[in-house]
């Protein structure tokens, strides 16, 4: 089947997509290498993308269902991510990096929804983003420093 959707602000039309193609496989084939797969059982959060601005697990969405909708991957959010990720790098919490795109995507979703979250709100929102390297504390510190830095800059 033919799939038309908006990917990172660009209209994409792909012919001959098998009906059981997952959005994850579709996006990787479209060159969105940031999207990772860590589990195949919807548990790890590595494949997080936005479907109409809502964070979902692309490994468990049919590309066919995304047809006609807006899909955003980290490739399409480089500027918004760049504001934030340096704070994670400063903590050394990027570590192996394999979970980073999903983590960064879902953090962006969190901060769009709740610009000033508490630590408990951060942990709850990101609980579906597994990380085996960092123990999570460095990620939390990085987010907290980022939020603090935003508060230091008076809003125009």
């Amino acid at each position, binding site marked *: 089947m033919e799939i038309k959707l908006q990917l990172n602000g660009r209209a994409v039309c792909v012919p001959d997509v098998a*009906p*059981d193609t997952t959005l994850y496989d579709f996006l990787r084939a479209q060159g969105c290498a940031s999207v990772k797969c860590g589990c195949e059982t*919807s548990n790890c959060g590595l494949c997080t993308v936005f479907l109409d601005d809502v964070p979902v*697990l692309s490994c468990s*969405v049919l590309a*066919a269902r995304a047809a006609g909708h807006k899909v955003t991957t980290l490739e399409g959010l480089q500027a918004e991510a760049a504001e934030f990720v340096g704070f994670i790098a400063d903590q050394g919490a990027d570590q192996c990096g394999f979970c980073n795109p999903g983590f960064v995507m*879902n953090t962006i979703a969190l901060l769009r929804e709740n610009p000033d979250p508490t630590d408990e709100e951060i942990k709850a929102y990101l*609980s579906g983003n597994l990380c085996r390297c960092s123990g999570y504390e460095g990620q939390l510190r990085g987010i907290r420093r980022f939020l603090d830095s935003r508060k230091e800059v008076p809003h125009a």
Partner: protein
Amino acid sequence: MLSIQNYLRAESLDQAYQLNQNRRSHLLAGMLWLRQSDITVGTAIDLCDLGLDTIEETPEEYRIGATVPLRRLEHHQGIAALTGGAVEAALKDIVGVQFRNMATVGGSIWGRFGFSDVLTVLLAADCEVELYKAGRISLERFAAMPYDRDILTHVVLKKTPGPMAYHAVRNARTDFPVLTCAASCLDGQYKVVIGARPGKAVVVHDEQGLLKEGITPESARAFADYAAETVPTGSNSRAGAEYRTHLVRVLTQRMLCQLADKEG
């Protein structure tokens, strides 16, 4: 590996129903469970264009569309107020935000999964389901029905007043529950629901009138003993039957005491 030969977005419930009469057809909900099955689906029928993703409110009830994601239910302020936060308590530890943005109310209830937090908490509420052909029936009755090829279109949550409480024990915070327990006293009727036994949730009614004088530490204990005696439990990789029965007793007593606190 899941194989799908044909994908179709239904244009009407009737079309979806007709297509679904074929045994090789499959209705798509959140895809979270289906995705892991090693089956071949002839036609995957997607209900996403049928406007079933809204929660309608009337003076008597909330009518929750089958494709409403769990996370929207979790954050619904009216439902939170009605259930005293019990629905949110039941949903918030299900895997993660992205998962709950995908898993649907209809998929969760239709599946009648043993591990279901959703089924447990909604059984404790005053709920009905709307089936395309069979119409409205109580959730308790639906939970006991065999799987057929009807379509669940809505879950109806009635605004019957009364306190509710929910707790699930988990080995890890976002894991499947080891045991779920919801309690309610709606219109003066006490109900305790036990799920993840690990079988499908069951409702324990106060048929013996153990709580007819209200909840006291003694009556709560007596009802907890009764629940522990009557609710069958089993073993799986997460826990054994003996521990689960122990939890039935502990959680039933605690949830009843919470009801009493909420009744104030």
